[in-house]
C-alpha cells in the first residue's frame, strides 16, 4: 500500500497555535496551548481523560471555538469569518473515534459526497477518486454496501478514505482506534502508518505506543488543558522529564 502524498504547502509552519484558551461555561478546558507544526510532521498527543487533547484538535478545524489566542492553519487564521472556517475545513481532514459515517449513504457515496458538494467535482470524477481511495485502504469490494454492513475496522478505513478524498494537507485523528475490537486495530494503524510516511501533516490523539514510536516526530503530553511535555518518542518514553508524565506513563504501561 503506497499513498499518494498531499498537496505541497508553501508555508514554513502549517499549524501555528498561540496561547489558546477555551472555556465550556465555567470550566476552562484549554489553558494557554502553544504549538507549531511544520508541513509533513507527525505528532501524537497523549494525556489522561479530560486533559483537553480532543478539545484541542477539535479547535483546529473549528468544531470547537476557542475564546482566546490564535490558530493559523496553512496561512489562514481561524476567526469568526465563515469563509476562513470553510477554507480551513477544506484543508484539514478529521477522523473520529465513532467513525461518524453517514448511515443512509453507500460507502462510495459517503466518500464522494464532499468532493461533489464542496469541491464541485462531477459525480463521475468524484466516484472514480472515491474508488481509488477505497482501493488504497484495501476494501474496494465494499463500495456499494452501507456502513451498517461493515465491521468497525472497515468502517474506520472508509472514514479515512472519505477524509482523504477531499485532498487535505492536514489529518486530525481523534482516538481512531479506541472504539475498535482489538483484532481490528492493526488494520487501521497500518493505513495510518502509510499516511504518515507519504507526507501528510498528522495530529493524532492516540495511546497506541507502537504507532507513536514508529512514525511520530514528536509526542505531546497534555494534562489539565496544558501541554506538559513534548519530546521525540525515544526520549519521551525512556526519559520523561516531568513527574506528571512519569506517573501517567507508569499507569498506562503497568496495568
Amino acid at each position: 500500500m503506497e499513498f499518494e502524498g498531499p498537496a505541497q504547502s508553501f508555508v514554513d509552519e502549517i499549524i501555528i497555535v498561540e496561547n489558546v484558551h477555551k472555556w465550556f461555561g465555567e470550566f476552562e478546558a484549554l489553558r494557554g496551548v502553544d504549538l507549531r507544526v511544520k508541513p509533513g510532521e507527525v505528532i501524537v498527543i497523549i494525556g489522561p481523560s479530560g486533559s483537553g487533547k480532543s478539545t484541542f484538535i477539535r479547535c483546529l478545524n473549528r468544531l470547537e471555538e476557542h475564546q482566546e489566542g490564535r490558530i493559523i492553519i496553512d496561512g489562514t487564521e481561524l476567526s469568526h469569518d465563515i469563509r476562513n472556517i470553510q477554507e480551513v475545513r477544506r484543508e484539514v481532514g478529521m477522523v473520529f473515534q465513532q467513525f461518524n459515517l453517514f448511515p443512509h449513504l453507500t460507502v462510495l457515496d459517503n466518500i464522494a459526497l464532499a468532493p461533489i458538494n464542496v469541491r464541485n467535482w462531477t459525480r463521475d470524477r468524484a466516484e472514480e477518486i472515491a474508488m481509488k481511495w477505497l482501493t488504497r485502504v484495501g476494501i474496494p469490494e465494499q463500495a456499494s454496501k452501507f456502513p451498517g454492513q461493515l465491521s468497525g475496522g472497515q468502517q474506520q478505513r472508509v472514514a479515512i478514505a472519505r477524509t482523504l478524498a477531499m485532498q487535505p494537507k492536514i489529518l486530525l485523528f481523534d482516538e481512531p482506534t479506541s472504539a475498535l475490537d482489538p483484532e481490528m486495530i492493526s488494520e487501521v494503524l497500518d493505513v495510518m502508518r502509510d499516511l504518515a510516511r507519504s507526507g501528510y501533516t498528522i495530529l493524532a490523539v492516540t495511546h497506541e505506543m507502537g504507532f507513536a514510536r514508529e512514525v511520530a516526530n514528536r509526542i505531546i503530553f497534555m494534562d489539565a488543558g496544558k501541554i506538559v511535555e513534548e519530546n521525540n518518542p525515544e526520549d519521551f518514553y525512556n526519559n520523561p522529564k516531568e513527574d506528571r508524565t512519569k506517573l501517567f506513563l507508569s499507569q498506562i504501561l503497568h496495568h
Partner: protein
Amino acid sequence: MTQSPASPSAEPQTAPLWRTVLGYLFDVRVLGVLGQIGFIVVVVFGVKAIGVNFAENAQKLGESQFICRDGTFSYRCAYDFMESESGFDISDTMIDHTNTDPYWRSFAVGVLNTLKVGIFGVILTVFVGTFAGIARLSENWLISKLALWYVELMRNTPLLIQIFFIYFGVILTAPNLDEAIQPLGLPFFLSQRGLNIPSIQFTSSAAIWLAFLVLGIIQFQVLGVILSRREERTGQPSNRFSTGIIAFIIIAALGWFVSGAVSETQGLMVTKGSRIREVNDIENMMLQRTGLNHLDELDSLTEDEIKDFALQVCVLEDSASETNFTSQLRKMGIPYRVRRSDRPDQATERYADEKCDVFAATKSILAAERATLENASGHLIIPIKENPVVWSIPTREGLNMVGGSRMKPEFTALLLALVLFYGGTLAEIVRAGILSVSKGQSEAARALGLNEGQRLQLIVLPQALRVIIPPGIGVALSLAKDTSLGIAIGFPDMYAASYTIMNQSGRVLQMFVMIMLVYMLISLGFSVVLNWYNEKIKLVER
C-alpha cells in the same frame, strides 16, 4: 424435582398428576395457545353481539329502508335512494351541482371537498411543520422562542375552538371586499368573502409548450452527460449545470413563442361594420371613438369619459380566453370592460344586442355561435394571439372580485386552522427527528467542509426523515379525518353533505357505512403512499 439426572442410582419417581398438569399450565407454549384461544372467544362474542344489535336495528328501521324501485324488498337495494333528487344546494362545489341533482352527486361534491381540504392541508402542513420544527432548533433566540410559542399555543388549545376562532374571529371580522387586506401589495385579497388568490389558466396551446419543456429537460440530461464526458477527457471544468439551465431557458422561450404562433384556437367575433380585421385595428377604432390622436392622451379624459369609451368585451365566465385577451388589451393600453356570461348563448345574445363590441372565446365556440345569429355573414371571427399559460390575477371590479380563484370563508378558515394546528404537532415530530440524528453526523459533515445548508439537506434531514415519517403518517391521517370538523362552521365536506342526506332520506345506516368506507379509503391511500416511501428510505443494517 430435586433429583439430578446425573445420579442413576436414584429410583425414578412418578410425580402426582396435579403436579404434571400444573407444570403444563406454566409452560410458556401452552400459555401462548391458551391466550390465543381466549382472545378468539372474546372477538367472536363481541362481533356476534354487535351483529345481533345491528340486525335488530335494521329490522326496527323497517323494510322501507330497502325498497327497490320496482317496489320489492331487498337488501341489495339499500343504496337505490341515492338516485333520487337531493333538493338542497351546496355552497362550495368543485363540480357543478344543483338541487335537482341526485344524492350521489351531492355526496360526491362532499367527498371532493373533503379531499380538497385534506390534500392541500397535508401539503401545507408539511411546509409549516418542517419550518417550525427547524426554527425550534435555531440558535437565533427570537426565532426559536417564536416557534416555541406557536407550537405551545397550537398544542394546548382544542382544534375545534381554533377552527371557530379563525372562522368567527379572523375571517368573518375581516374587512369588506372593497377594503380587502392585501399583504405586501401582493395579489392576495383577504376579506369577509374569503381569500382571493391568483390562478393559472391553460389555453389549448399549453400542450405544445409542455412538450417543449419536456424536450428541455431531456436536453438538460443529455447535455450534462456530453459535457461531463468532455470534462473527463480534457480535464477542463465546463459549468455543466449553468449551461444546461441556459439551454433549457432558451428552449422554453422558443416553445412559448412557437406554441403561441402555431395555435390558432382563440378568436374574437366582431361585426364587419367595426372595421376590425385584426387585433391591432382595435386601437384605431378606439382613437376614432375618443377623437384622440394617440392612446397616451387618454389621461386627459375624465374617468367617466374613459368608462364610456371603454371597449365592451363579452366573454364566458372563468374562461382562459378572457385572461388571454384582456392581458393583450392591457399591454396595448386600451381601456375595456368585461361582461361575463355563464353560457355561450347568453353571451351571444348580449353581443347581438350590441351590448358589447367584441366577443372573445375559442374559435369553435364562436363559429357555432355565429351560426345562430340572424345575419351571420355580417360578423367576422378574427384570430387572436394566445399564450400557452395565462395568469389570472384577482382584481377589484365594483363590488366584486374577478379573476383568480376564490377560496370561500369556510374553506379558508378550515384549511388555515387544520394547517396551523397540525403544523404545530408536526413541528415537534420534526424536531424530535432532527435531534435523533447524532451530533457526530453534523460534526463529520462540518469537518468535511459542507456548509450549514448542505449539512441539513444532505446529512441531517434524510436521516431525520426515518424518524419523522411513521408518526408523520399519523399526523396526515388525523388531518384528513379532522376535515369532518368543517361541519361546525358550515363547510360542505363529505360529512356535512351526508348529514343533510341522512336527515332528508332517513337512511342513517347506509350513509354512515359510506362515510366510514370513504374515510378508510382516503386514509389507506395516504398510508400506502407514505408507507411505500418509508420502506424506501429505511436504513440498511447488518
